[in-house]
């Protein structure tokens, strides 16, 4: 194996790209869970976003419209979850699983005519001045715009939860829905909005895979990315800052194993491909999760 063929600058640069789909999906789920809802359907919403984004982008020849379509597709799918869990009070774990199974089937059906087609080009930005800095420029400032959109969303969620009144209400609903209800907040309405935001973000993450990362449509292409996003939310103790760390850590493992595959490591390709999943398990074991939102996963029913 030839380790010198691995360029550390390129490695770190592709780390940011590899982390972006997970980051997008995870920040959406973080908001959902802070509102006290456990949506295990991230994988299903991601893959639906991936196919919606691809179909729209190919149809309109515009990646930007593709991402918009993906966000709408993911949000629409999440409405099913919201309707079942919030209005019909179904079990959140089971409903999330159903959403994933349904999303996998739906995406396979929608993507039938799109296998083997190339997505429209989504060029990288070369940010003037910043992008010219040696080493740091190529790592941080020469990516496609969605990488920065992801970072902006993370920063936005952080500020929203920490400083805004709406963020406080959302946290109150997640910590203790009975108390929030007693104060006159609309628990179900807040949660529905959070669920839709989560769906839109998961859709964006999926579309990033089908439009930028791969960029093609193949069935089941998310390959567990949605589940890893869920794990990263736990790892991050429901805090946006640590979410960023978790996503980049995961991106690093992914990129490193891909590079080792390319460099011809003595370990089998299959065993290297296990690395991201094993790393996720290891991280879940080592990092003791912080305290989860108080009402996480519980149904809310306003009894009289």
């Amino acid at each position, binding site marked *: 194996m030839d380790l010198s063929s691995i360029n550390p600058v390129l490695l770190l640069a592709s780390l940011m790209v590899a982390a972006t789909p997970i980051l997008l999906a995870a920040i959406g789920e973080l908001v959902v869970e802070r509102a006290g809802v456990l949506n*295990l359907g991230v994988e299903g919403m991601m893959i639906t976003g991936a196919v919606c984004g691809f179909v729209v982008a190919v149809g309109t020849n515009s990646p930007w419209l593709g991402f918009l379509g993906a966000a709408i597709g993911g949000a629409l799918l999440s409405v*099913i979850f919201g309707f*079942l869990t919030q209005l*019909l*009070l*179904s*079990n959140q*774990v*089971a*409903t999330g*699983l*159903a*959403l994933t*199974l*349904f*999303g*996998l*089937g*739906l995406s*396979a*059906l929608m993507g*039938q005519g799109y296998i083997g087609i190339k997505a429209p080009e989504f060029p990288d930005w070369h940010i003037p001045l910043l992008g010219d800095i040696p080493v740091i420029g190529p790592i941080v400032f020469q990516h496609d715009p969605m990488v920065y959109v992801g970072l902006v969303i993370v920063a936005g969620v952080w500020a929203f939860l920490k400083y805004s009144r709406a963020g406080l209400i959302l946290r109150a609903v997640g910590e203790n829905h009975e108390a929030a209800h007693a104060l006159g907040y609309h628990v179900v309405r807040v949660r529905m909005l959070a669920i839709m935001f989560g769906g839109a973000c998961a859709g964006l993450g999926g579309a990033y895979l089908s439009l930028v990362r791969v960029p093609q449509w193949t069935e089941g292409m998310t*390959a*567990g990315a949605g*589940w*890893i996003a*869920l*794990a990263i939310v*736990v790892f991050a103790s429901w805090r946006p800052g640590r979410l960023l760390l978790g996503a980049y850590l995961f991106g690093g493992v992914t990129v490193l194993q891909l590079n080792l595959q390319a460099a011809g490591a003595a370990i*089998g390709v*299959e*065993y290297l*491909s*296990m690395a991201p*999943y*094993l790393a*996720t*398990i290891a991280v*879940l*074991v080592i990092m*003791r999760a912080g305290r989860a939102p108080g009402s996480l996963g519980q149904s809310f*029913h306003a*009894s*009289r």
Partner: protein
Amino acid sequence: MIMLEKRPQPSRGWTFATPVVAVVLTMFFGGLLFAALGQDPLVTIRTIFLDPLFSEFAWFYRPQLLIKGAPLVLIAIGLSFGFRAGIWNIGAEGQYIVGAICGAAVGLAFYPIESFVIFPLMIIAGAIGGLLWAMIPGILRVRFGTNEILVSLMLVYVAEQLLASMALGALRNPDGMGFPGSRNLSQYDSAANLEIIAGSGMHWGVLTAFLAVILAYVALSRHIFGFNVRLSGQSPRAARFAGVNPGMLILSCMGISGALAGLAGLFEVAGPAGQISIDFNVGYGFTAIIVAFLGRLHPVGILLAGGLMALTYIGGEIAQSNLGLPIAAIQILQGMLLFFLLAVDVLTNYRVIWGRQVA
């Protein structure tokens, strides 16, 4: 204004009625979906739900029903213990794969010796393989408090890679001229999971599935273990006061589901599938989750639900070849079924009140 009022106890009537209502709703909305795909909805639904049982070729499809249903029922029975106790093993697909790999490896190790002990040894190896794979999330949960949902799911992807590595490497057929995939176990008499009655579809896995249904029924309704499982699900605090060791309960539930999933994998690899190959697993582990819920986590219900789900698989294949219906549409149909079941379930636990809003 429609209001929901919590029932003091779940309604018994609706407990039995909801799966039926869910199936009817799924057929209706499935029909709409098929119409949207340009098919005749009535013909498609008849093809999926009735043709496997009553058409002129039903003699061919009926054995298939047992073959497809057996792994679903076996896995779902195992899952039902954990789901009742609030332990979510959703990685049965991985345990199914590892059970198949372990069982097949034992069989292939003896090749070409013929002996009656080989198949029983393979069964034991399959069960142990699935059990150990399920112990990973179980032990991590008990020892470190790690979320068993995420770990068991991650291990599905690990198992898929392991399967690929086995099909291409360690277990590859040395006489296979370099093609991926192991020797065909169903052509190796001592290791083959043969039909007990020829042409009936009744292989050893089907028999095991029926046995599992009976044993699970006895365990859940007549044994202290089943009582502890149900108690932990309904009130974990009360269970602790009653002396239930939560760690042991988690390990037993994970172990049972893992072992049964492993068995399902072994019976599949030694019989209908025949060999370890890259695309050996077809998602039984995930469909079994739907089967478990549709069967209300009750052994007899699971048996019926497994039959119905097997029907959609076979009917789906017929609809694919005769009507050109995409197989993904069947996947959507199965997902829809779970959605409707969960939606209608509100009627089991809540009473719907129509009328004026009481201030």
